[in-house]
């Protein structure tokens, strides 16, 4: 009988076969076999995959339903591939990080084209390396931050490649802690309760072509070095503590060609150092940039600042960063020599922006005629602006990025 099932190293699982579940299939499979799960609804949990090289492949609507009991699949062997599966209903726990698909201490895993519905954590990678997470659709129905897990969670990993995933309504869409040398590319993260993207202590990572829309607090990047962020879109992260992107303790990164649109704060920098910010578009944000005085030696250049309520806010009268050759839609200087650079320097931190940053309660005066009067006075007599932050070569025309 066994020889019948094990043709060419393939174990077939279906509701009416001899092998009726993934757990059973793993127990009889040899390393490097393929487990083919036919269409069906499999109520299984606590599946431990401990044989290297297995390819677990779903066909049609192959659903593993943990039925709110325990986590679904834990992989502890190298080079396991999971593809085409739907995993659902992994329960919330306040003690154990239940995940739909957890990889612990493995290398070379591949998670491709799966669907995760209503799980606590969806994809969980711990102490792993060289994993590919591609084209997964991850959706939960989390309501409270305390009782929610992350969509893609990676902890002490390196060399990950995370691409083309969609994460909806988890706590954090993509969460990295101690993850180095990884690529995060072309993902879409939305409606997450906290951050669309949240990473800490993760160095030398590349984030590109991702879209983060309408997450509770936007995205946050902390305690990391040598990060590249480019071609991402940060959009509609609106709320009292929402940021397009929050940077904290960041060194030697690159931020370019991103779009920050309609966020409460587009880019927030706290102790962010030696980071060039170039060729980004800041459109329709409450604050385009908020730069705390402990951020130094950053270069802000060739960006477009368009229709932001406040362009730059800072809590210091001195500027430790270089602002040069940006386009500011509020700039109304002239260009007599027609070289495309305005003849009058531009101060993007308005007096009102300075006041609100330093005396928080003044924000209650937003849209009052008193603050409008202050803005007018500042236009007439720019010397009343106490802030030293100046763009000496403001551009007359919007920058056309390549």
């Amino acid at each position, binding site marked *: 009988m066994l020889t019948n099932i094990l043709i060419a190293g393939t174990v077939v699982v279906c509701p009416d076969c001899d092998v009726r579940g993934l757990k059973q299939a793993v127990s009889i499979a040899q390393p490097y076999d393929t487990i083919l799960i036919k269409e069906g609804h499999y109520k299984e949990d606590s599946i431990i995959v401990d044989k290297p090289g297995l390819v677990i492949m779903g066909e049609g609507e192959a659903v593993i339903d943990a039925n709110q009991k325990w986590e679904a699949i834990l992989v502890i062997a190298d080079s396991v591939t999971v593809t085409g599966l739907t995993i659902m209903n992994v329960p919330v726990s306040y003690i154990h990080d239940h995940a739909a698909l957890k990889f612990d201490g493995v290398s070379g895993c591949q998670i491709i084209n799966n669907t995760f519905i209503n799980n606590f954590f969806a994809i969980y990678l711990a102490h792993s390396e060289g994993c590919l997470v591609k084209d997964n659709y991850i959706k939960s129905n989390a309501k409270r931050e305390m009782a929610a897990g992350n969509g893609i969670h990676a902890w002490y990993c390196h060399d990950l490649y995370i691409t083309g995933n969609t994460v909806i309504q988890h706590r954090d869409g993509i969460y990295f802690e101690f993850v180095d040398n990884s690529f995060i590319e072309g993902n879409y993260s939305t409606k997450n309760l906290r951050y669309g993207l949240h990473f800490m202590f993760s160095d030398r990572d590349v984030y590109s072509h991702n879209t983060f829309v309408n997450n509770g607090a936007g995205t946050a990047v902390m305690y990391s070095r040598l990060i590249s962020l480019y071609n991402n879109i940060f959009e509609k992260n609106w709320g009292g503590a929402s940021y397009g992107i929050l940077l904290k303790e960041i060194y030697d990164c690159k931020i370019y060609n991103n779009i920050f649109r309609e966020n409460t704060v587009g880019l927030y920098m706290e102790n962010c150092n030696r980071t060039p910010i170039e060729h980004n578009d800041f459109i329709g944000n409450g604050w385009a940039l908020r730069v705390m005085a402990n951020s130094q030696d950053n270069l802000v250049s060739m960006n477009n600042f368009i229709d932001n309520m406040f362009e730059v806010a800072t809590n210091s009268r001195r500027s430790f960063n270089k602002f040069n050759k940006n386009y500011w839609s509020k700039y109304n200087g002239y260009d007599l020599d027609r070289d495309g650079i305005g003849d009058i320097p531009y101060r993007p931190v308005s007096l009102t922006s300075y006041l609100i940053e330093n005396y*928080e*309660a*003044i*924000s*209650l005066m937003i*849209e009052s005629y*008193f603050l409008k009067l202050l803005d007018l006075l500042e236009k007439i007599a720019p010397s009343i602006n106490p802030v030293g932050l100046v763009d000496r070569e403001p551009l007359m025309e919007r920058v056309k990025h390549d």
Partner: protein
Amino acid sequence: MQLRNLSSGSKQLSLFEHYINDIVRGKWFIAYTVLLFALIYAVLMFSFETSQAVVGVMNLVIFIVPAVGLFFTSMYYYSRREFMEFILSQPVSRTFVYFSFYMAMTLAMIFSFILGVSVPMFIQGFIPEAIKMSLWGVLLNMIFVAISLMVSVLTDDRVRGLGTVLLLWFFFTIFYDAVLTAVIIYFRDYPIEKFIPFVIAINPVDDFRISTLLSTNIAAMLGYSGAVIKHFFGRFFGVLYVTFLQSLWVIVPFLVGLWKFRKKDF
């Protein structure tokens, strides 16, 4: 013509009718209503989203409504002084003359507010916003007409009266916020956030501005103080406090004006 109305039927009602007819047919009133309609319509037309539209309308309203309420009432009062003296020589109660004048003026202003602000908002489809805006319009007009009438009754000299009204308008729209800003800066080392809602709610213009902002997406930009004030306005006590203050702004000037009007030697 108007005298015949006065001498027959209900005197008070016909006096009220006379005033309201006179105001509504005046070219100033018509010009104001048309201008308000045009401005609000334009703001709504060039706004891309609800928040922007509501804030735009709010900006116009806090500038124009106090100004027109104050100036129009004063100017009308002074221009109709002789007529009022003549009426008072007839057997009518002074309270009812005063009351008719106030009601006519307030209703006329509310009428123009509805035509100039609420109607364009309805036409452009901002229906819940229009209803809320109308309620505030009623309140603001009641307040500023009462204040202006009080000042006019208290001041016999037309120039001094209009000057006082100008200062009051400046006070409500700009100076109050300026003083409050100075207070916030001066007391920066103290936890004034809890105390600010009580103070800011005193000014009806600020009340209108902040409650409008809290209903738009700008609320997120008001930060910690915004959260405190939202909590304050959201509670029963806060609503009671604001309602009480706003009623005071109507009742106190109205009664002071009435008291002076009754014992005044014309």
